[in-house]
């Protein structure tokens, strides 16, 4: 899960903390949770997207320029993955790292299957430009 969060946040050092929070959320709702793994995954996804929003807001407040994604210097492809919009990156990671189906991604992201298809399509289009370069 830490690795998933690491990818979802584009390589952010806060990944471990976010996963801890997600585990805590699962524990607190243990009595109500029927699918702990699914619930946990969704908690991690939500936490990462929320974290990204907070980071973007803080960046704007500090008038900083640039995305500032940490740890995204490994390769061109990685840089592009890291620079994808958060939801597109989330869909890509859940598909190609977690190997989830469209329906499972939709569940994890709290959206509908057509939206997942659209996110994946747009993300792949961006990534393909790099591959073909």
């Amino acid at each position, binding site marked *: 899960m830490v690795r998933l969060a*690491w*990818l979802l946040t584009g390589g952010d050092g806060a990944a*471990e903390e976010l996963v*801890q929070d997600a585990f805590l959320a699962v*524990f607190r709702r243990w*009595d109500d949770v029927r699918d*702990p793994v699914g619930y946990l995954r969704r908690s991690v996804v939500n936490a990462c997207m929320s974290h990204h929003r907070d980071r973007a807001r803080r960046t704007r407040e500090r008038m900083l320029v640039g995305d500032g994604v940490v740890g995204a210097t490994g*390769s061109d492809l990685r840089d592009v993955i890291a620079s994808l919009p958060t939801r597109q990156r989330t869909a890509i990671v859940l598909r190609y790292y977690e190997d989830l189906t469209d329906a499972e991604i939709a569940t994890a992201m709290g959206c509908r299957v057509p939206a997942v298809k659209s996110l994946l399509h747009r993300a792949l289009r961006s990534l393909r430009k790099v591959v073909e370069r």
Partner: protein
Amino acid sequence: MRKDAPGLEDRLRAELATWATEAPVSDRPWTDAPEMVVVGPVRPRRAAVAVRSAAVVAAVGVLAVGAVLALSWRRPETRGGVVSGSIRQVAPGWTPVDYAGVRIEVPPGWRVVDTEGGDAGCEAADTLFVGVPARFGSCVPSLGKMPDPHVTLQRLGPHRPPTEVGRGEGLVVGDLEGMRYRIEDRMTGERADTIVFEQAGVVVFLHSIPEDPAVSSILKTLRRSPVVSLPTSEVRSGVTFHVLAGVPLFLRRDGDAVVAFIDRVPPFGARVRWCPSAGVFVSPAEGDAFDADGRVVAGPVVRGLDRVPAEVRADEVVIDFAALRAGPPPRAAVPPWSPARIAASCAPHVAR
């Protein structure tokens, strides 16, 4: 989809898999936690026997309280999505285990090992460990070259073949605030997910959920156990030592105000002692000292004593472990007390 998509997808999978391996590991490996190593020898044998006896007495008391609560059970109180106070029927042959505000049930054939009672041993198969897994150190010789005695709990039994997943894994319910457990698979060297429950007061390793139906079925029984209570008459003014729900703690009572301090140097150190003459809790192992409010006054300890606010209701003192809070960090670095100073501060007697 374009024709180059499969190639791109393969590259994506490879890139993400590589990138994922760069995820940071915990900053504090277990080997950097010296208190983990000394926790066993620190406690004198005589004290251990006394604590064990107290634990037995307390366990009987807790069972009695549990029986009373079961008989007087009412609709569970719902608070913030967490159902507390629920008592449900235990499946035939299963054994309920209460610890630190958590109830978990184990099936027939499973062992329940209280790590507070001494060395937990090396056999982790079909075992529920209750307490702090700080005493797996003795497993190191039998496991040969493993450099870190505290990292691995999974598949701890050396006789377990690496292909057998799940049943060789023990479950651990610990009680410590803010511990950072890191688990690695001793057979494959892979790092498993780390489960840390900050402020929840318990630590449960959930790694086996998708793999082992036996472990999963046990974890599904995990519940908040009833809050613990004891007669007000048993809580004298000042500081007294108790073992409640398996957790050793000091109760400090001042009129109707009662606070429970966890009897351990946080986050996972040695037991502390209450020195009434100086009005401090001390830990001789590292020279840590805490004032009567559990604040750090000496030592390398990272924060004050973890505490649970207790509530005095009519004729009973009620402790809800869900309210466990970490102690405050020291405002400034303070040197540890020397053994001589601790001895002087704790004369003429030490209470536990």
